[in-house]
């Protein structure tokens, strides 16, 4: 089981770092540029660029939108790998041997995805870093102003809120795709369909959970 968990960590967590880093860095940069280009009123301070980048990346982009992207990447991988095992009778083989296939296949994925907040932490850091680089090296703001914006009205609970959401999304990312893969019927075509359906339901679940958690945790 230990080896399986490490394998899932490698496939699901380490394997996602590249794409998460790439997307986060450039989207952070775009958020920073967009904010800068929309600050046409000279009375609005430039540090707002850093402030808006921080709020966008930490509150929504990193936890929620990276999770939706991961529903496509990790979710499809989980559904198709388990679904292919179903189609090719590998799950039946486990059952016949006396192995609890559901536990054997899904439990390591849930444990591996407990490290998912680590991915989102990196996404937050790189998103803000991308915003800083785009803002400063694009000539939209100075480094001091951007950093001042990052520190302005910083509420530590926002980080907690983001990681609570991330934890819930991790559970969604591990369970919904596993369900669609494990209980699928048919052949190769149905594996593809199951992956698509799992992505749709994961996205819906993430969006709904995001709304409910935001309402519960942030509204006064």
């Amino acid at each position, binding site marked *: 089981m230990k080896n399986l968990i490490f394998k899932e960590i490698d496939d699901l967590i380490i394997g996602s770092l590249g794409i998460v880093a790439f997307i986060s860095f450039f989207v952070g940069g775009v958020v920073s540029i967009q904010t800068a280009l929309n600050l046409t009123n000279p009375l609005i301070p430039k540090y707002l660029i850093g402030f808006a980048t921080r709020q966008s990346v930490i509150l929504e982009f990193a936890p929620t939108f990276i999770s939706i992207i991961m529903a496509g990447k990790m979710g499809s991988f989980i559904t198709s790998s388990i679904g*292919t*095992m179903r189609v*090719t009778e*590998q799950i039946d*083989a486990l*059952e016949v*041997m*006396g192995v609890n296939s559901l536990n054997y296949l899904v439990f390591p994925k849930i444990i591996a995805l407990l490290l998912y907040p680590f991915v989102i932490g990196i996404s937050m850091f790189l998103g803000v870093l991308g915003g800083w680089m785009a803002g400063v090296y694009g000539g939209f703001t100075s480094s001091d102003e951007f950093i001042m914006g990052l520190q302005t009205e910083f509420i530590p609970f926002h980080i907690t809120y983001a990681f609570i959401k991330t934890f819930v999304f991790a559970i969604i990312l591990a369970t919904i795709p596993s369900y669609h893969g494990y209980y699928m019927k048919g052949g190769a075509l149905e594996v593809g369909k199951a992956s698509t359906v799992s992505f749709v339901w994961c996205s819906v679940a993430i969006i709904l959970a995001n709304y409910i958690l935001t309402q519960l945790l942030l509204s006064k």
Partner: protein
Amino acid sequence: MIEIKNIEKSFGDSKVLKGISTIFETGKTNLIIGQSGSGKTVLLKSLLGIHTPEIGTISFDGRIYSELNADEKRALRTEIGMVFQGSALFDSMTVEENVGFPLKMFTNQSPKEIQERVDFVLNRVNLVNAHTKKPSEISGGMQKRVAIARAIVNNPKYLFCDEPNSGLDPKTAIVIDNLIHEITVEYNITTVINTHDMNSVMEIGEKIIFLKEGILAWEGSKKDIFKTDNEAIVDFVYSSNLFKKIRKAQNKEI
């Protein structure tokens, strides 16, 4: 020995197995034959415990499956080896990891002991130089050998094979049939093979049961097939011109 008594299995309104009773003897290759949809796979899956018959009992050397508790069922399953139609090898594992998997899961053997046993069974199925390859890197015939090696690695008492030579060329199919037969005799296993390959029937059919629309329509050995007047089995076996000619020739000899 596996004894089946009057088992019935339905899916919705459709009754797939209609009161089948038979005995699969130890040390023999027992074949289940019949047309597609005759209930062969459902019977095999009932023997494996994947399907639960509504009526009737299946006993493994006196142990009635439906009366066993969860632990006893789990223990019984470790005595079962299964060769699936598509081999069902784990894609993510190498050949030797696939074969060693049941030992890793169900025994306390050391890695060295597991490796020795894996090497032994892979040699037994005449598979060399494929230990570190993935299933996708070897041929269909080699995959079947790996599946057989995995099925016998834990010294099973019962070996089930679902169409073990489907998708194989006739020469390789005979090699696989003979390998299963040799292993059955050598390790005194109760082997049940689900097939509709008449070459297998003629090659290793020590006991054959013929299912037609969920009913056990005929049983006997490969020798009995040439003598039987049972229309159902004659129709099925001699549906090909080649076998019609063989039967004619056999009858002339008699």
